[in-house]
């Protein structure tokens, strides 16, 4: 497969104006599936979380999960949507082994939520409004594993194995209106939008929101048009871009690829693209064809969902503080500057800092540890900071050890490394590695005597009033104690010993 031609991002931006669109699928964390009472659990043995409804056996009847409806309404409200007075499910008919029924139960012309918006904050604080077309309910499909062939991918596979544990898991699909005017910030906006949706559903408690588990999945639509032209270009749809970084990269790549296609005078092919994380490129999936005639019709086995306005208002009253308002409140509570707070948000450690403060650390201590120590280590390990394994209690304990003068800051970072290496709690590591600051004056006085004896000329200078020469003696003591002395205390003791006023 030859690589597609691309332009540089800068050149693409010079010539074209990108238009984006996103379909984000959110898996709800209900206990059971959308239409069956089988458990909605990730990672169990294949085909054990299924019953006759999930397997599409003849004569079975689906029944709607009330909690899934409530979660869907909450998502709609959090996205500033209108909630339908009445809506129905529909059958989306297609043949593919991921659905044993040969249709997916979805919603077609009557989504439960529609006409919303989300204000997205970019890294420099710019607010960009993304309009939401609709959020509709549907069920997830089974998981196919393609076996044989060269790549383990769908093309060239010898056969596929199907696990229906995921079939019937409740999904809410959130569809944006075309997003115009993002310009060169399109890739950043893409990432920020998906991050915002993830934050909302996590905050609502309606989804586990783990992208690595497919709880939040993004299909990214990209098209380009020459600057100044109203009509949209032909779009591609990059499927299952399943990390925030990948969303940004996929949009970046597709803009560059489209630009090269348009520059060559060819039309863009309207098609599905597959994202490849390893090469950060997309490859052609399949072109839209008449096989995409899904022949939607109202699901005859389910009756309409008619959320009363009272019910909707009850659910609205349970909504947590919106993420943007929460950020404002936290920044004020913590007393961070705009820049400090934005760095915290961009580093993705706001929740962690909140937990650390709740565990008893001060706001400045929490920020110092997360931003100063943990973010960098997470970057080196190529994981999210929250995934590194640092518990809020660890930071509180480290900060306390420093505050009590048991260890100094330099030792504390060593202790943190020990915690991450699984050597135990901070106190245990201090003990094991012998890191405690020497605070007993006895050994210090011995070391001071030795240092003064070793540098008699310096001792004379200090006695003569040149107090600034004390650094050499303090240095000698620190060296002798392998950095475990409290330098301030050492200075005091030296001055006292020599009878000089500091």
């Amino acid at each position, binding site marked *: 497969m030859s690589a597609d031609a691309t332009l540089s991002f800068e050149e693409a931006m010079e010539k074209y104006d990108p238009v984006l669109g996103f379909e984000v699928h959110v898996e709800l964390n209900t206990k059971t599936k959308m239409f069956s009472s089988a458990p909605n659990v990730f990672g169990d043995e294949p085909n054990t979380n299924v019953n006759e409804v999930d397997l599409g056996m003849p004569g079975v009847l689906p029944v709607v999960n009330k909690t899934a409806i409530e979660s869907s309404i909450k998502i709609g409200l959090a996205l500033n949507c209108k909630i339908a007075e009445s809506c129905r499910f529909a059958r989306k*008919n297609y043949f593919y082994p991921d659905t044993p029924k040969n249709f997916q139960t979805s919603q077609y012309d009557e989504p439960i939520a529609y006409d919303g918006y989300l204000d997205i904050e970019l890294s420099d604080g710019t607010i960009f409004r993304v309009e939401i077309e609709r959020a509709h309910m549907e069920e997830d499909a089974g998981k196919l594993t393609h076996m044989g062939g060269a790549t383990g991918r769908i*093309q060239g596979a010898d056969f*596929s194995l199907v*696990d229906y544990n995921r079939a019937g898991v409740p999904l809410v699909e959130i569809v944006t209106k075309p997003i115009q005017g993002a310009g060169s910030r399109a890739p950043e906006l893409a990432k920020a939008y998906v991050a915002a949706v993830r934050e909302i559903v996590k905050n609502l408690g309606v989804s586990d929101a783990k992208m690595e588990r497919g709880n939040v999945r993004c299909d990214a639509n990209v098209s380009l048009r020459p600057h100044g032209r109203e009509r949209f270009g032909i779009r591609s749809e990059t499927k299952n871009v399943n990390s925030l970084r990948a969303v940004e990269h996929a949009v970046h790549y597709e803009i560059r690829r489209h630009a090269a296609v348009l520059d060559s005078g060819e039309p863009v092919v309207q098609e599905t693209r597959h994202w490849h994380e390893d090469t950060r490129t997309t490859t052609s999936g399949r072109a839209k064809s008449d096989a995409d005639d899904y022949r939607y019709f109202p699901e005859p086995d389910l009756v309409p969902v008619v959320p009363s306005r009272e019910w909707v208002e009850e659910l609205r009253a349970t909504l947590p503080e919106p993420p943007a308002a929460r950020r404002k409140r936290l920044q004020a509570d913590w007393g961070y500057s705009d820049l400090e707070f934005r760095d915290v948000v961009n580093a993705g450690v706001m929740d962690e800092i909140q937990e650390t403060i709740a565990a008893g650390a001060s706001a400045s201590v929490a920020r110092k540890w997360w931003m100063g120590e943990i973010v960098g280590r997470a970057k080196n390990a190529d994981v999210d900071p929250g995934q590194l394994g640092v518990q809020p209690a660890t930071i509180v304990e480290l900060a306390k050890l420093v505050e009590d003068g048991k260890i100094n800051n330099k030792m504390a970072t060593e202790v943190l490394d020990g915690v991450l290496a699984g050597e135990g709690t901070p106190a245990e590591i201090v003990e094991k590695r012998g890191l405690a600051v020497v605070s007993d004056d006895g050994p210090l006085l011995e070391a001071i005597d030795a240092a003064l004896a070793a540098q008699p000329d310096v001792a004379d200078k200090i006695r003569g009033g040149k107090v600034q020469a004390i650094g050499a003696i303090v240095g000698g003591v620190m060296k002798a104690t392998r950095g475990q002395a409290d330098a301030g205390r050492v200075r005091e003791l030296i001055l006292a010993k020599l009878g000089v006023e500091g």
Partner: protein
Amino acid sequence: MAAINRDDVAHLARLAHIEMSAEELDRMAGELAVIVESVKSVSEAAGDDVPATSHPIPLSNVFREDVVGHTFTADQALSGAPDSDENRFKVPAILDEA
């Protein structure tokens, strides 16, 4: 609704993965046209005061509490499968090499 013609039937047959001969297409186009006509008479019976419905009984909000019920074992789930492997349904390769 427009009459069902032979091309419609061929299109539907392809979507439904049903192989049909030329004679079958001709015959089915005629039969489906009759069925569509017959169903149409229902629309004529309903006046303007009868709203469209997708369900014969005027019910709404039939819900189930989110409580875990019964499941199959993998063996039970796979008992009707033509082929299986590693506790999963085994299906033929779906797309040819692109």
